[in-house]
């Protein structure tokens, strides 16, 4: 029996959702309607009586503010009713919670075939919308990749009512396996790869063809000398750029601008791993587990280790910003959760590279969402994912450039803590014995997220698969994580890992390497609905799933505990040591591949890279109105406050926050870094910071990389941290760097990659900041609408540092009138690739460089000042240089400052613009009580620094020297800093 349960807000209270939708329609479509009313509908399809349905309606409604009825209420005054529900098979989190509630109300759990489907109905009043306009409104309310939309006129509703929302999945058979004949022409091989979204090259297809000609043991298993679809899919996932990092592993012949040549065998091994390895050998003793597990692990104290990982989720977020970004955050949560014996989650981080929300429509490639809507969706996804998981955010940023209109970058990261020992074994260890059971826990498998790994290894094109989109369910994951820590503490499993890209094929494939093989029955997999073929089950990226190796003797207790925590677990098979990746469908073998071929059979790519430094115009800097420029810079998208969005992320849950993302008197200036305690009421903490400077890449990725490493490190110093216990994460996002017809400039882009890697090696090593984990995403281009847009080479360098005593932390806001203002570090005319030149629509050539020896000397001295508690405020300038730095320090304290530009330590600067807007690295602005001036000067010693002015009570930022004499009201700085994204 089916019932429509309708929950409406009582008319006497404000319908906040309706009002938000009304303003969204204005913002996205420039359509003004008079009013939007909303209501929630739960369509219950279950064996319940009409009286029970009435009871459900009454109990689900909040009687103070809502009315619940069975059926449909007649609401006067609207013209269009828009119904938004989910497509069949798409995760309906609200519907799932509703079925839990229905179960409680009727006193029995709903059966598997009894369902509750949720939908939202919007009633649009006024605005004189015709059907076409109403359709526009409807599509702005829904994402038609995953949601269904119905548009009904009021008359249609009156005469026929609203049709029941019953998106059932029906009519599939499932269980089918087909074979691929690979004894075909090259063109046909490539056709197989393309049509199957396998993203395999011809060379790779040929290696596969050759393997199956001679592979042993297949006859005995009833297989022919050609692959099944299961086998081909497994290889495509395992060998995808996303999973195998083929470009970072390639052999590259690199030639520089002078014609000097060198051969690099794997950028990853030659630069990233090498630096970490060398630092670990010589300089630091706190590396615990780097590069080989789901996240990097470093020692913290004698009780815990700290785990950190950051990832991107770019392609899914481009198509479905909300779902893509949400799975970005809840997905990366599973990395620490699947590291060692399973880390508890402490802090989330996020950062997005996007097109301007104010972009004109012509900037947006055909079929992709406008950056404003995309941004709203991405934020909402990570907000919901993070908040509902109960994890505070400790760092968040946005970077805007038109070149991200084709592909947004959505970075998400998570810090976790891992006990040093769990049940007598090291918390960071994991192992598998042959005979251990393969167990999957968490969500069920559906067609969602199929081909995520292979599709994200291609550029976004017109036919990008919609089924690659997944929707996260943070609550299912939270329930699972609560269960995991209980099971971990009881020692019920030997190994845990997450199911991410490539689904079970990747997770079990990688786990099986530990024991030397696996045998798994895909028919045992718990499905969301019937009708999946074995290959789909194996590669589905349906969310909220972890895989375990459970010793046979523990399985009953493992299952019992899971049942008590409402977590579904399934024994899928067992780990073996026969060297085979063996999949069955019941008794029938559907895949039988040598583990060795699967993991090591992929031929290495051979690529060419050629570096030629670009030359750009220099802007004209004379006769600038510096006061106007300072104000305009404060308001620029890459500098201004995004507080409206950031405050929608919880950053206080767990009660650990010490230096918050926003600081200052009115808590509205973005902090350089954050400090978080690792346990409630503790004194030890972690500092999180990062650097990202994509426009420096336009000049030279070498200096871009050096600068982001320096920036991330000096931000640690700026909040009171020290050198010595800082670890890094590298996240590379690149445009396709492989030369081809589509990418004629591939050799240059690959040279940019090589140069960034060279700098990473040199600077991480010099600073003794090893990378402990990293990720790359290599095909960030869009070819939609016949226009190619490539992102600028972008690297996010994230740091995590140990802070022994959080009470030594410092914030950037000026504290007291009368304090002295110091500038530490030398300013040079380094504005190339910087934000000031970007405002002038130029790139320039003199990109900021880094001298690591000099920088470390400065950092040690500045740390000595914070350690002694003598810095009242400390800030490190970045985009927009000292001008923006002074602005933030003054705005933070709502205090004025007098600054003499002539006193700022500088070399080669000829104008106020150069002094103020240069983005030279390794600099700080510090305010100090006059009483401590001598001690501070003594501690800073012989590094370049100067007292350049005073904090005052005048409410004015006064700057003089180099031919200017400016008085800018701090209130105007605040206004400009906050207005750009206020309410957006």
């Amino acid at each position, binding site marked *: 029996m089916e019932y429509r349960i309708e929950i409406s807000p009582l008319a006497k209270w404000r319908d906040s959702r309706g009002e*938000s939708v009304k303003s969204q329609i204005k913002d996205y479509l420039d359509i003004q309607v008079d009013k939007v009313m909303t209501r929630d509908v739960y369509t219950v399809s279950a064996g319940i009586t009409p009286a029970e349905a009435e009871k459900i309606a009454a109990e689900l409604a909040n009687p103070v503010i809502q009315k619940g009825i069975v059926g449909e209420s007649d609401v006067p005054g609207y013209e269009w009713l828009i119904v938004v529900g989910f497509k069949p098979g798409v995760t309906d*989190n609200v519907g799932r919670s*509703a079925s*839990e509630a229905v179960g409680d109300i009727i006193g029995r759990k709903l059966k598997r075939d009894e369902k509750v489907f949720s939908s939202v109905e919007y009633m649009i009043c006024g605005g004189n919308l015709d059907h076409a306009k109403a359709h526009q409104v409807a599509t702005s309310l829904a994402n038609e990749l995953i949601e269904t939309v119905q548009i009904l006129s009021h008359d249609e509703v009156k005469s026929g009512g609203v049709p029941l929302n019953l998106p059932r999945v029906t009519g599939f058979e499932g269980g089918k396996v087909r074979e691929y004949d690979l004894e075909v022409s090259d063109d046909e091989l490539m056709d197989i790869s393309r049509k199957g979204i396998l993203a395999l090259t011809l060379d790779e297809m040929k290696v596969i063809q050759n393997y199956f000609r001679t592979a042993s043991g297949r006859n005995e298993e009833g297989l022919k000398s050609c692959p099944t679809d299961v086998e081909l899919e497994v290889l495509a996932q395992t060998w995808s750029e996303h999973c195998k990092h083929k470009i970072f592993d390639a052999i590259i012949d690199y030639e520089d601008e002078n014609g000097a040549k060198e051969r690099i065998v794997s950028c990853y091994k030659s630069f990233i791993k090498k630096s970490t390895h060398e630092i670990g050998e010589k300089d630091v003793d706190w590396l615990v587990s780097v590069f080989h597990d789901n996240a990097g692990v470093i020692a913290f104290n004698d009780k815990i280790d700290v785990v950190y990982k950051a990832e991107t989720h770019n392609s899914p977020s481009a198509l479905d910003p909300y779902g893509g970004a949400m799975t970005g955050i809840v997905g990366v949560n599973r990395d620490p959760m699947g590291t060692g014996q399973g880390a508890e989650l402490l802090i989330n981080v996020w950062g997005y590279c996007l097109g301007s929300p104010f972009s004109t429509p012509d900037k947006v490639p055909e079929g992709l969402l406008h950056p404003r809507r995309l941004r709203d969706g991405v934020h909402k996804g990570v907000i919901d994912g993070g*908040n509902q*998981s109960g994890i505070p955010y400790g760092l968040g940023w946005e970077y805007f450039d038109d070149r991200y209109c084709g592909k947004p970058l959505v970075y998400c990261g998570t810090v976790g803590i891992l006990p040093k020992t769990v049940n007598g074994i090291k918390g960071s260890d994991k192992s598998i014995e042959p005979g251990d059971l393969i167990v999957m826990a968490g969500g069920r498998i559906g067609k969602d997220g199929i081909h995520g790994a292979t599709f994200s290894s291609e550029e976004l094109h017109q036919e990008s698969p919609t089924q690659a989109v997944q929707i996260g369910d943070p609550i299912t994951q*939270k329930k699972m994580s609560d269960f995991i820590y209980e099971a971990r503490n009881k020692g019920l499993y030997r190994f845990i890992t997450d199911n991410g890209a490539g689904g079970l094929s990747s997770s079990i494939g990688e786990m099986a390497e530990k024991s030397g093989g696996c045998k798994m029955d895909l028919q045992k997999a718990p499905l969301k609905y019937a009708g999946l073929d074995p290959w789909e089950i194996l590669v589905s990226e349906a969310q909220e799933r972890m895989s375990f190796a459970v010793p046979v003797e523990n399985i009953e207790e493992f299952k019992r505990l899971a049942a*008590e925590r409402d977590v579904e677990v399934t024994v899928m098979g067992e780990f073996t040591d026969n060297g085979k990746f063996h999949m069955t469908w019941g008794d029938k073998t559907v895949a039988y591949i040598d583990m060795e071929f699967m993991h090591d059979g992929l031929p290495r790519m051979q690529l060419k890279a050629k570096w030629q430094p670009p030359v750009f115009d220099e802007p004209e800097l004379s006769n600038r109105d510096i006061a106007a420029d300072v104000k305009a810079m404060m308001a620029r998208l890459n500098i201004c406050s995004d507080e409206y969005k950031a405050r929608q992320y919880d950053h206080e849950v767990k009660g650990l*926050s010490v230096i918050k993302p926003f600081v200052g008197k009115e808590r509205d200036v973005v902090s350089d870094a954050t400090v978080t305690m690792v346990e409630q009421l503790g004194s030890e903490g972690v500092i999180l910071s990062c650097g990202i400077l994509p426009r420096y890449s336009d000049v030279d990725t070498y200096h871009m990389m050096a600068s982001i490493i320096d920036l991330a490190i000096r931000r640690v110093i700026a909040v009171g941290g020290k050198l010595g216990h800082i670890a890094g994460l590298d996240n590379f996002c690149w445009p396709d760097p492989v030369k081809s017809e589509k990418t004629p400039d591939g050799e240059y882009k690959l040279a940019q990659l090589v140069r960034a890697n060279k700098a990473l090696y040199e600077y991480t090593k010099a600073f003794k900041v090893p990378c402990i984990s990293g990720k790359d995403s290599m095909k960030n281009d869009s070819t939609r609408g016949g226009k190619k847009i490539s992102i600028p080479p972008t690297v996010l360098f994230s740091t995590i540092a140990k802070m022994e005593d959080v009470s030594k932390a410092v914030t950037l806001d000026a504290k007291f009138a009368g304090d002295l203002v110091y500038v530490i570090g030398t300013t040079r005319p380094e504005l190339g690739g910087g934000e000031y030149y970007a405002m002038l629509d130029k790139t320039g050539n003199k990109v900021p460089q880094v001298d690591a020896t000099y920088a470390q000397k400065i950092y040690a001295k500045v740390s000595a000042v914070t350690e002694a508690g003598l810095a*009242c405020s400390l800030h490190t300038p970045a985009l927009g240089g000292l001008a923006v730095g002074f602005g933030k320090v003054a705005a933070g304290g709502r205090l004025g400052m007098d600054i003499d530009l002539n006193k700022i330590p500088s070399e080669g600067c000829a104008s106020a613009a150069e002094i103020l807007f240069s983005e030279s690295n390794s600099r700080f602005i510090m305010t100090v009580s006059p009483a401590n001036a001598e001690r501070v000067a003594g501690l800073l010693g012989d590094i370049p620094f100067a007292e350049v002015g005073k904090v005052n009570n005048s409410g004015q930022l006064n700057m003089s020297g180099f031919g200017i004499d400016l008085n800018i009201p701090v209130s105007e700085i605040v206004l400009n800093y906050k207005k750009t994204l206020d309410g957006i």
Partner: protein
Amino acid sequence: MDCSKVKVLIITGFGLNCEKETAAAFTSNGASAEQVHLNDLLNGKHRLDEYHILAFIGGFSFGDHLGAGTVFANRVKFNLRDQLEKFVADGKLIIGICNGFQTLTRLGLVPAVDGEYFKQQAALAHNDSGVFRDDWIHLTTNEDSPCVFTQGIKNIRMPIRHGEGKFVAEQDIIDKLEANNQVVFRYADANGKATDKFPMNPNGSLNSIAGICDPSGRIFGLMPHPEAFLSPYNAPDWTVSKLKGELPEKGEGSIIFENAVKFAAENLV
């Protein structure tokens, strides 16, 4: 007075997430706190009568789907009502914070005007802004309130973090709440004066109400998070206080739990 005999029950699971800091809030004030999964109460492994104080904590039970607190409150109401009635009748203490406050209103444990427990009289609606908000706010206390948890507090600060925190009720309920001094906390400006101005009043609550109690003062619900301000280093301006030499030893939120633990030690153990 032996605070260590005070036993606190913190119900966890289904997307709740403030168990650790809430446990720390009680244990740092001398009580023993147990984090118990709701299923372990439903299946009888634990019973409410083992405890003196019950905390409904913050988080997103069932993802806030169907309205914050709705699904969780239903589960409690249909499965634990007898135990809960006895707990209330025994005069034991209950605190509901954020999602826990939403749950308490859905259960009808606050405000229970006219002693009508288990009848919903008030609600926490969507914030006027339409979005979730994380910020620090000032609260002023109704010093005439019987609320056990807030004795001795005048003005206090703590974080808020919610999307559904606008306190609403019919006018007659509001009038009675006010008359009976069941309004405990109001959103205030920095000087401790109640205000309905955003962002000081972050959600548009009627009469700026941030927290209420039942007529006995033993059941307390509030939207802000005192358990997230246990350390003085949680304060948004602690760096200024420290430079001035005015940094207190404890975070301001701690006293709410201290009051509860002391009351329980004196009256319930």
